[in-house]
């Protein structure tokens, strides 16, 4: 996704106009409007610095990021293994793929009632949901990457008399790497949403556990009708998600930099 860079300098200047107008209006309106639902700009800034100083927000962010990476790793590993299996073996593709594609149709959060009955409302459940969200994008990309290896490449492998293992290691995986990496990027974006959802939906309300993370922070802010904290949560949710997404894309571009040169 990412913002499209505008070509001209004036374009960038124009892009700041609307946010500036909105923030100014917000600031001015704060002195006039008095409603429980309307949060003045100052209150949000105060709530922001307060929750940073108390350590609530940094702690929540840390827990969420850790959880997102853990669930992403688990889901990606499983997706990678199964994707490799159905991408490389026609037989296992025929047997396993239809079932997996059928399961993919179920919306992510629709798994929560069933999984929470099996796994409880603790950490295992949250990680399972995040892993599930990361699983399918990785699976699909690994499968596609393995299937789309051009025939000449495979022939070179045969020329070297590679056995199956060496063929996978030296021919198929390097060729499929860009597709697999973009699958991992996409999986992280999905896993981020999955993490917030897991924290927001599991271990709050009627299902009591020890909630932590931005999602739980968010749910707590709403439950106490603290609109200022809700706005703080939305802003930190968006900006941290964006920053992490950029970081993952940057790292993966670094990791796949060789691929451009090898062409």
């Amino acid at each position: 996704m990412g913002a499209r860079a505008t070509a001209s300098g004036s374009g960038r200047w124009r892009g700041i106009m609307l946010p500036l107008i909105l923030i100014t209006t917000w600031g001015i309106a704060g002195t006039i409007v008095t409603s429980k639902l309307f949060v003045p700009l100052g209150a949000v800034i105060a709530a922001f610095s307060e929750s940073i100083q108390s350590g609530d927000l940094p702690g929540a962010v840390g827990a969420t990021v850790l959880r997102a990476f853990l669930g992403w790793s688990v889901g990606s590993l499983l997706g990678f293994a199964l994707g490799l299996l159905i991408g490389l073996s026609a037989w296992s593709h025929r047997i396993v793929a239809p079932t997996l594609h059928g399961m993919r149709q179920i919306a992510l959060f629709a798994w929560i009632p069933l999984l929470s009955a099996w796994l409880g409302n603790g950490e295992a459940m949250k990680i399972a949901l995040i892993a599930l969200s990361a699983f399918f994008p990785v699976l699909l990309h690994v499968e596609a990457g393995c299937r789309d290896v051009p025939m000449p490449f495979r022939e070179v492998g045969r020329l070297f008399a590679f056995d199956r293992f060496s063929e996978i290691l030296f021919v198929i995986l390097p060729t499929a790497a860009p597709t697999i990496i973009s699958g991992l990027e996409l999986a992280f974006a999905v896993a981020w949403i999955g993490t917030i959802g897991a924290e927001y939906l599991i271990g709050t309300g009627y299902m009591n556990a020890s909630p932590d993370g931005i999602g739980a922070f968010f749910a707590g802010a709403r439950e106490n009708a603290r609109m200022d904290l809700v706005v703080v949560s939305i802003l930190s949710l968006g900006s941290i998600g964006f920053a992490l997404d950029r970081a993952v894309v940057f790292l993966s571009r670094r990791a796949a930099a060789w691929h451009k040169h090898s062409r």
Partner: protein
Amino acid sequence: MTITPVEHRQGSRVAASPLLWQPGALESAWAALRRVGGVATALALPFALLAAWSLAARYQLVAPQILPAPSVVGTTAIELIKSGQLQSELAVSLFRLAAGLVIGGASGLVVGLAMGVSQTVEDYLGPTVRAVWLVPSLGWLPFFMLIFGIGEALKIVLIAKACFLPMMVNSFDGVRNISPKHREVARALELGRLDTLRFVVVPSVLPHLLTGFRLSLSKGWQVLVLVEMIASAAGMGYLMTWGRKSFQLDIVLVTMVLIGVVGWLLDRAASVAQAHATAWVSRSSG
């Protein structure tokens, strides 16, 4: 189909051998057999899982509260359909989806087209709109809840929000990707504004719009399930959460399957419509 030397050689060999059937007949019979075999292998794993599930339930390897027997799930499904509850919940859900799709899709279309046509609009609006829509729908939920309460408006607003971005991005891309050559042809033919719209703009934008519509539909369905699970007294998501709260996992399983099937059908319908409406694309580009 052109005959390559290899096929030609094979054909002559077949003709030389005393075979009674045509080689084409053999191939089509083989293809039909393969298709049947493909369906059979595709169903093997679900059946194996179903068998394991029923065995586990019969010998009570897991508590029935945690995993009800398949037969119980089937009976529950039939009961829910007979009593009409499943249909009415589904109708509620689909109505919300339609309302959200119309509102969000239409505004996404307008904003996307405006940004595509005018660089000025894009410069002013683009960065803000993209930044705002970077926050996932889930992030807006508590905010919208405080503003709209947990009534019908909340669901429709959230679905509309989810449908907005795919439609906006795709209609923007559609306008931006109109080939300059096509515009030049229109100018050379001295087409009027309306005719340019009719013969150049609409045909090049349409495929993008349909892609946007399809993405909006699947995004909207996902968000619908989410919002109904959190705050609703009707609809698929509600039925599901209700089944979970009363520990009737048979209801949960029935709704899960239905959510999957309906989601798949919606996507299928949209992609068939897309293929019909844009069949000329592959023809004209070929």
